[in-house]
């Protein structure tokens, strides 16, 4: 049996308190989500409607698949800005092999393989060239992957997929959009992976202190490669849903998706300094941004105002999550304790 490394975070030593549970960032996010629901349903008569609320998820969940591995990457103090290009490349290759006569089922598998390979290359390069930061490595592959996609299709688009393929983007199972069901399934899998396995604990260990993790016997390089490969794989899943939704593909799809994904993760309370945050926060953040956009869209707010609101939300989340970890608050806590005593 392998030696297990299970770091115990400071919080696990603290005594249980309901107050602390509800002051967590995830619960604040739930609060913000409820406020958004409340305000939106006040502003538009079309918002609070089962069909619209479930149907709206089709618009914003496609990129949300990449949020899961991105949480892991950012927990390890790394980043991946090539995911948008990976979406484009895997989608373009899927369409190309389909147009060359491969059955669509196989083309989808090719798409997943291409995505995973793109992710693996990122992971390999980051581990191999430790002196280069992940931003630089994934910036290069971001340009590279998009460039290959352009080289393959130039300015053309490929469409004409079999009709069952539209099911990914447009189909429903018992009134719930198919994409929502897949998202829920994957959230369970990734939450379990991050919070209930040794693999997940190792990610936190790397994020808290990479050197300590390495000396404790954690195979840091291997875990990084696996997580980056997962990021590529999820980008390919996004590619399948997005391509199905548009019915055709072009090399310029999923432009800037990486930034949307990173915004969702940051809003979810994952600190870029590593080791802090969890999957629940990021999953809630996906819906916060998604329904904020949808709700403001229903009352026809200009797109740029929407960007301003999301920017402000982000600044708020980053400042609060960092404040929580700063020393000031521990002083507060001590004072509070004294008062209680």
């Amino acid at each position, binding site marked *: 049996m392998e030696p297990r490394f299970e770091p115990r975070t400071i919080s696990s030593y603290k005594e249980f308190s309901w107050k602390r549970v509800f002051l967590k960032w995830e619960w604040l996010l739930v609060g913000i989500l409820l406020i958004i629901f409340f305000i939106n349903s006040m502003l538009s*008569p079309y918002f609070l409607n089962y069909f619209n609320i479930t149907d709206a998820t089709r618009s914003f969940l496609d990129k949300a698949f990449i949020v899961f591995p991105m949480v892991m990457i950012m927990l390890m103090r790394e980043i991946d800005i090539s995911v948008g290009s990976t979406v484009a490349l895997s989608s373009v290759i899927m369409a190309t092999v389909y147009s060359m006569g491969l059955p669509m089922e196989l083309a989808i598998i090719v798409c997943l393989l291409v995505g995973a390979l793109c992710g693996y290359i990122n992971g390999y390069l980051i581990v191999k060239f430790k002196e280069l930061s992940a931003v630089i490595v994934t910036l290069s592959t971001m340009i590279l992957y998009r460039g290959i996609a352009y080289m393959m299709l130039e300015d053309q688009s490929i469409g004409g997929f079999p009709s069952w393929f539209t099911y990914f*983007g447009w189909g429903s199972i018992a009134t719930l959009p198919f994409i929502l069901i897949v998202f829920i399934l994957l959230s369970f899998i990734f939450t379990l992976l991050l919070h209930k396995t040794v693999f997940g604990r190792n990610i936190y260990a790397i994020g808290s202190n990479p050197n300590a993790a390495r000396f404790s016997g954690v195979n840091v390089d291997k875990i990084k490669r696996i997580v980056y490969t997962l990021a590529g794989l999820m980008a390919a899943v996004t590619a399948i849903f997005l391509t199905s939704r548009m019915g055709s593909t072009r090399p310029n799809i999923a432009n800037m998706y990486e930034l949307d994904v990173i915004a969702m993760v940051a809003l979810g309370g994952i600190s870029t300094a590593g080791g802090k945050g969890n999957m629940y926060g990021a999953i809630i953040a996906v819906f916060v941004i998604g329904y904020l956009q949808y709700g*403001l*869209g229903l*009352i026809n707010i200009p*797109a740029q105002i929407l960007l301003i609101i999301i920017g402000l939300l982000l600044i708020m989340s980053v400042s609060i999550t960092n404040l929580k970890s700063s020393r000031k608050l521990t002083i507060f806590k001590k004072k509070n304790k004294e008062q209680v005593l």
Partner: protein
Amino acid sequence: MKKLFRSGVLLSLLCLILAACSGGQQSSGNGDEGSSGDSGKKKYAIVFKSEGNPYGEKQSEGFKKAVEEVGGEVILRAPAQPTVEGQISIIEELISQKVDVIAISGNDPDALQPVLQKAMNQGIKVLSLDSAVNKDSRMVHVNQADPERVGRIQIEAVAEMINFEGQIAILSATSQATNQNIWIEWMKKELEEPEYSKMELVKVAYGDDLRDKSVSETEALLQSYPDLKAIIAPTTVGIAAASKVIQDKGLTGKVIVTGLGLPSEMAEYIKSGVSPWMYLWNPIDVGYLSGYAAHALVEGEITGEAGDKFTAGDLGEYEVVETDSGTEILLGDPFKFDVENIDEWKDIY
């Protein structure tokens, strides 16, 4: 303390969202007051390619004018970036709002098909204007001008400007912009005529309708082709950016710019000789005609079949015609702007 701080932050967020929402409603014109005061008015939505495009704003202005004349409620939308993904989300939101008609300038001819068909299946009338979507995604397309004429006329113009001799380049919008690509095809066909045998099209560059990219693409053209005689920019953003580069580099008269531009943006360059003349139709009229076409669709006066006729306010009577790529309504010939008439148009649009 901590609680106080948190509730303060939450409260400010709430105020912010509310403020933003009320601000947005004001700017969207006659948005529905309250929640159910919209029972009588039909909702006309227009979706442009991206925000902050002067051409799109003028077009939407014309659309709004027409819709107000027929007593409808207008919704103006555009994504922040010129992407199909953004337009798909907007159309979904419009479907949820149960609008009566959607007029769209597509960022891609094919990729909007699933979502626009969903709209049509729910009884929403769909037409495209300016940049067409494919014929299965719409009922009719409002075309600003016959694409063949738009393409050929620009080559005729540039040939006259450079005495039928020398290298020319094209600075277009995005590489998949539907209308630009059709015009460029016609330009290439016109160039095959014998009288242009001494002219050579060296490159089609794409400025993506972004000012900075159009500027750097123009600079790249000048560097790669030092003997370049003229640049044709069949897009309003591109022609203004190219003209600025030529003027700043002191190449006025050596490299000539022409194409399709907004008079208000191009007046300076037409007067200084950077661009002897250029073409455009009136984007306000394109929007206005589309507004009336939308009205005719909603009221059932037309169904989008060839031969349907309707009256478009001040513009008079129009007929739906059949083309290779579905049915269309043609506005008219492109209009020539030169030193003589630029002053009377530059304040209009």
